[in-house]
């Protein structure tokens, strides 16, 4: 596909033709290059306002402050409550999604027949396709009242939002983990059976350890998705930034919190004037969020790439 075919054609139209070919090639290259421009654009726009913000509020005050109040005087821009609230939702949703996702992947890869798999896989994809604002509605209107019958829940709370975020990211964990498990060579399984191992022992003792970097990569990616998830936590978890410490997790998870993304939505909907410190705080949170998720995505790629080298 890469050899030069132009030299064969010696007709008079050749130069016109190759100019046109080159223009078309350039056009397609521009389309592909746009993706790099988008990344550069994201970084530039975030940095532009975030750096301005950091000249007014020191990064130390931003990242160690424990009070977040960008709209009500006295203004205070400590991002730690938002960070710990994001972390709380991420951990709680991981407790839901990781075990379920891995178990689902083991079932699909080791136990399910082709027919069952062809039904369950698209069904799982539907979970990933439901708009997050709808998931937020589910959490607020159905999950919270159901849990409220036996737990001391507020109307807006971290727990129901986290459960639903967990359900949303299950397909991500299960599909990437399943790919990793399916890539484990059959010879390893057969060696296990040859040693007299049961299917349970082969699944948990051979396939899962062999696929562990792929599974790990799916965890990182899913956690990154949970960190960046916005509408579920905005609708169902509320607008109350709370400093989470190891001592108060057990009560805060039943209460209203505010994650970084939800704080961005609140600022986006508010009428803080463009160019003000509070407006620029939006970009400072955005930059933090982008940096965290970007590093996690790179990390996940790297872990997955290590895995691929082993079996190919």
């Amino acid at each position, binding site marked *: 596909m890469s050899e030069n075919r132009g030299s064969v054609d010696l007709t008079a139209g050749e130069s016109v033709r190759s100019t046109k070919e080159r223009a078309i090639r350039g056009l397609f290259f521009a*389309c592909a290059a746009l993706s790099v421009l988008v990344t550069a654009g994201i970084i530039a726009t975030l940095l532009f306002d975030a750096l301005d913000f950091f000249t007014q509020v020191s990064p130390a005050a931003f990242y160690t402050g424990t009070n977040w109040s960008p709209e009500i005087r006295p203004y205070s821009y400590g991002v730690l409550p938002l960070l710990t609230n994001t972390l709380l939702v991420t951990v709680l949703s991981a407790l839901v999604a990781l075990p379920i996702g891995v178990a689902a992947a083991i079932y699909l890869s080791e136990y399910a027949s082709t027919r069952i798999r062809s039904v369950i896989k698209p069904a799982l994809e539907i979970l990933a396709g439901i708009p997050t604002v709808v998931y937020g509605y589910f959490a607020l209107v159905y999950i919270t009242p159901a849990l409220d019958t036996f737990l001391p829940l507020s109307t807006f709370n971290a727990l129901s939002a986290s459960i639903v975020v967990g359900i949303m990211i299950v397909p991500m964990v299960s599909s990437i983990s399943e790919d990793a498990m399916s890539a484990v060579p059959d010879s390893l399984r057969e060696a296990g059976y040859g040693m007299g191992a049961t299917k349970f022992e082969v699944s948990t003792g051979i396939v899962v350890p062999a696929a562990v970097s792929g599974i790990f990569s799916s965890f990182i990616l899913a956690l990154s998705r949970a960190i960046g998830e916005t509408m579920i936590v905005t609708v169902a978890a509320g607008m109350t930034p709370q400093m989470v410490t190891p001592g108060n997790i057990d009560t805060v998870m039943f209460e209203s919190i505010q994650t970084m993304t939800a704080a961005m939505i609140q600022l986006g909907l508010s009428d803080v004037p463009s160019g003000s410190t509070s407006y620029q705080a939006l970009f400072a949170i955005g930059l933090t969020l982008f940096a965290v998720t970007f590093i996690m995505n790179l990390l996940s790629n790297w872990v997955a790439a290590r895995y691929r080298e082993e079996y190919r």
Partner: protein
Amino acid sequence: MAAERDDASWFGSSNTTGYWKGRLFEFGCLAATLFGILMVLALLAYVFIDAFALFEPQPAWLDIGFLTSAHSRFPERAGIFPALVGSVMMMLVIALSAFPVGVGAAIYLEEYAPDNRITSLIEVNIGNLAGVPSVVYGLLGLAVFVRFGGLGSGTVVVGGFTVGLLILPIVIISAQEAIRGVPDSMRQASYGMGATRWQTVRRVVLPEALPGILTGTILALGRAIGETAPLIMVGVATTVFSPPSGFFDRFSAMPMQIYSWVEYPSEAFQYGVMAAGVVTLLVILLAMNASAILIRNRYERR
């Protein structure tokens, strides 16, 4: 996947606890697989029951009046029409902007790109863009289209371009897969006839890859129709009372309208109007996904 084996019969009764442990594990894994699916199915059932008021004496919330009227403070009169029109117009902008650019990028990467560092940089970058939180795309749209481009806060083009950028990586990746599926022998035959690369792409590769490209694009548009966070960031209104009259007009979209109803605590809004809005959005989404699957099945080569 691997060879099935009846454990118990090999080792006699001494291994039955292992057998039951295995069965229990299999059952646990199956239960986990079904947990999310069944839970969402149950929630969907609740929404449908609420939207059509199946177990209540009152008329259904989701009716023709809901689809054709604007928002109202009174739940009985509240509707989704302006947001529905806004969503459709935004999808038009997304399709017209993201589709050609995404397919162009995929053609470049699959048919033209040399195997060098710039190409691999673009590839890695597309993968990473797919993982950027949608709310961050909202900030990009705000900075580039509203403040720098001057296209007006909360207009249809700004919303469409912003969400278009968001789904661009998905369109590129799925179009790449479709193009990669075209057998190389067809390209060779075309070149053998003396066709240029562009002629080969236009007359051979694209027609062959089109069903796959369309499937991926429709699925990406399905993702786009539910996006809310980036729209909030570029200043799209949560509620408007008339549909946009043009592409440079301010608008609202269906998920925005649903989000705005969260603020109405009355039961009629929570379990009635909001359920009706959710069902409308999901029906349109499912129709799009179904058409994507139909296209895939119709043209699947076996």
